């Protein structure tokens, strides 16, 4: 695996995380801006369309009001001149001639008494010439509008219509204001009908297109809608209004004659809003706009925002990638250097870092660690060399120590010394001279090298005992003096020495603080020999030791040992102890004459080891077996 391309690069992860967070923030911001701008644009569009509606209604009503006023004036003249037909004709003619608004004017006199109906009508033709029509048999009075005026006695606006009654093929589309003229008896004596052409109105309506697909309509009646000239489309719209609940309620609201705005009509792409308002004559102007047209501007803005957002994210990505890679390059380099070092190249050069930051600290720590490791390895090499040297020297010392302990055992005696470390502090000695047997066993306090040095000193002074002419207590005093003389460190040696007359069985012994030896008589239970402890050797020069004596039956076996036997421990710190030692001594195999001393020694050593069960010994072990 290349150290330069870890599977999940820290720099990449960091970059990814930062870019993710920044992207999320940008997207959220764009979303908020898009939503609020959509709302603002919608509100703004609705308001402006509503304002446009109001202005347009005023614009449309102005000529209508003017026409109403002029018609009223004509009506007042008609009232005065009702009986003079020629004057009425002139009034009609002049009204058309003088007014800029009135395109045609009819004075309709309903039949009364024995005189029939009479109609005088002047209008401008396609060439702008005024033409006059007088009729007395046209049945105009029977028309819906005149009847409406006669019965309601109120002025009436007609729905727009084509003035085909003028007999002109290019008759314009007009609407007519019909106003009653009252006689002295308050009866309707005439109806004045003024025409106004609607080409201006059609143009006006057509010009009201705030958005591309806006639909502006002036509904004058169920069937006459200026702005929707296509009858098929009109019937379609009417059908939709009849079937769709929303549109039905919209229609109801529109008919109430209050101006308002209805938002969120229709669905999806075709959702729209409507601004509508009534004219004073009951007509209804409405402007419908598709939201998708309104939002076209917003869509463009959103697109720009989106592009800006993407550019922003890309910039962050680029900047993050470059700067994070630059910032983390030292880590990669340090990692390479560390790997190099781990391969054993402890002098691997560390990357140079110029910045004074954590990276520099890390590098300095690495350099420090590198130096420490190099130093430590040097030290370890030295120590190992030193240890090896000491170990080999200790092995030599062990050989020397074992060499000064006798190993040419006679049949009557066997001994074993096993140090806990390379060298030990236990010792034994023996000699057989004629019928006399001498033995000694000792234990220097502590273990290891200090104990072994004392052991060698003690072993040397044991020679005094071999002098059979010297009494045992005096011998021990000499030994004590000899050890004490060379003991500046408060070390001490426990020692048990004995001389046995093999003929009489008498054993003279002197104890210097050593563990009691085990006596195994041929015909009785084994026991610990009761011996005066005196004091361990080496502590008090000139101490007066007392020797004792006991007679042993032939066939008696003596087992001497050091505390490495009784104090051998298991892992749970329980000790081999005196009881186990006595039990071992009472074993028939131990007691049997057939068992050699070397087997007895081995048997006890095995028992102790079996007891310790692998727990390392913490003291030297010495065992000695003698048969009397």
């Amino acid at each position, binding site marked *: 695996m290349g150290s330069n391309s870890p599977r999940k690069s820290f720099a990449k992860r960091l970059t990814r995380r930062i870019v993710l967070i920044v992207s999320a923030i940008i997207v959220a911001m764009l979303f908020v801006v898009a939503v609020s701008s959509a709302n603002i644009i919608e509100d703004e569009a609705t308001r402006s369309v509503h304002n446009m509606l109001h202005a347009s209604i005023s614009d449309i009503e102005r000529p209508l009001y003017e026409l109403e006023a002029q018609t009223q004036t004509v009506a007042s003249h008609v009232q005065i001149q009702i009986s003079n037909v020629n004057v009425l004709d002139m009034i009609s003619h002049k009204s058309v001639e003088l007014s800029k608004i009135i395109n045609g004017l009819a004075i309709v006199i309903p039949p009364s008494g024995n005189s029939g109906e009479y109609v005088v009508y002047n209008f401008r033709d396609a060439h702008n010439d005024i033409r006059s029509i007088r009729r007395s048999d046209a049945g105009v009075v029977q028309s819906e509008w005149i009847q409406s005026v006669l019965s309601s006695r109120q002025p009436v606006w007609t729905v727009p219509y084509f003035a085909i009654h003028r007999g002109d093929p290019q008759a314009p589309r007009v609407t007519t204001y019909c106003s009653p003229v009252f006689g002295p008896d308050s009866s309707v004596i005439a109806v004045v009908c003024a025409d106004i052409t609607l080409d201006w109105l059609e143009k006006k309506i057509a010009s009201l297109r705030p958005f591309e697909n806006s639909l502006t309509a002036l509904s004058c009646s169920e069937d006459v809608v200026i702005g929707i000239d296509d009858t098929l489309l009109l019937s379609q719209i009417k059908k939709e209004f009849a079937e769709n609940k929303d549109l039905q309620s919209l229609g109801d609201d529109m008919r109430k004659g209050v101006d308002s705005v209805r938002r969120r009509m229709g669905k999806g792409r075709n959702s729209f809003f409507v601004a509508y308002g009534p004219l004073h004559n009951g007509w209804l102007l409405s402007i419908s706009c598709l939201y998708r047209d309104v939002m076209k501007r917003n869509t463009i803005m959103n697109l720009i925002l989106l592009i800006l957002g993407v550019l922003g994210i890309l910039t962050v990505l680029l900047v993050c990638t470059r700067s994070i890679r630059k910032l983390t390059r030292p880590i990669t380099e340090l990692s390479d250097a560390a790997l190099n070092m781990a391969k054993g190249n402890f002098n691997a050069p560390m990357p140079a870092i110029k910045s004074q930051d954590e990276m520099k600290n890390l590098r300095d720590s690495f350099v420090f660690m590198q130096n420490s490791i190099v130093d430590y390895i040097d030290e370890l090499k030295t120590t190992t060399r030193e240890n090896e040297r000491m170990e080999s020297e200790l092995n030599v010392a062990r050989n020397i120590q074992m060499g000064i302990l006798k190993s040419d055992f006679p049949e009557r005696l066997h001994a074993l010394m096993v140090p806990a470390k390379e060298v030990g502090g236990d010792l034994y000695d023996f000699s057989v001279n004629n019928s006399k047997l001498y033995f000694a066993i000792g*234990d220097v*306090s*502590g*273990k290891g090298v200090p104990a072994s040095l004392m052991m060698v000193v003690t072993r040397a002074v044991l020679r005094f005992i071999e002098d059979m002419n010297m009494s045992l207590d005096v011998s021990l005093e000499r030994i004590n003096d000899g050890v004490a003389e060379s003991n500046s460190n*408060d*070390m*001490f040696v*426990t020692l048990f020495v004995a001389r046995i007359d093999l003929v009489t069985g008498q054993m003279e012994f002197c104890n*210097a*603080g*050593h*563990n*009691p030896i085990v006596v195994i008589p041929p015909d009785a239970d084994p026991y610990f020999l009761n011996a005066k*402890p*005196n*004091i*361990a050797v080496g*502590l*008090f020069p000139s101490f007066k030791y007392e020797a004792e004596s006991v007679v042993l039956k032939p066939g008696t076996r003596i087992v001497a040992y050091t*505390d490495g036997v009784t*104090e051998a421990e298991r892992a749970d*710190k329980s*000790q081999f102890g005196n009881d186990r030692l006595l039990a071992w001594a009472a074993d028939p195999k131990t007691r049997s004459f057939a068992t050699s001393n070397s087997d007895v020694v081995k048997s006890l050593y095995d028992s102790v080891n079996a007891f310790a069960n692998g727990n390392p010994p*913490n*003291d030297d072990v010495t065992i000695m077996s003698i048969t009397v």
Partner: protein
Amino acid sequence: MQVSISSQDSKTLVTLDGRLDTSNVDQFQKDIAPLMQGDNPNIEIDCQRMTYTSSQGLRMFLMLQKSVMARHGKMVMVGMIPQVKEVFDITGFSNIITII
């Protein structure tokens, strides 16, 4: 081995708790170092809770005893359990250290 040392009137009371063996004899030597000096050499050692001592431990008590004697003081060891007392008896240390 826990060693606690407290002063009482004219003597120093030392309480021992646990085993004294090869593994802790060096620490023990450091623990009792303050007892090896000073002008109040009388020491009472409470051994009730000392469960074991090796021969190296005996050497520590011997050194302490010698130090106390050099300063004309008195050292007593009290409450020793039989197993520990036996070690002192066998080695003859009972003859040179006062054990109550």
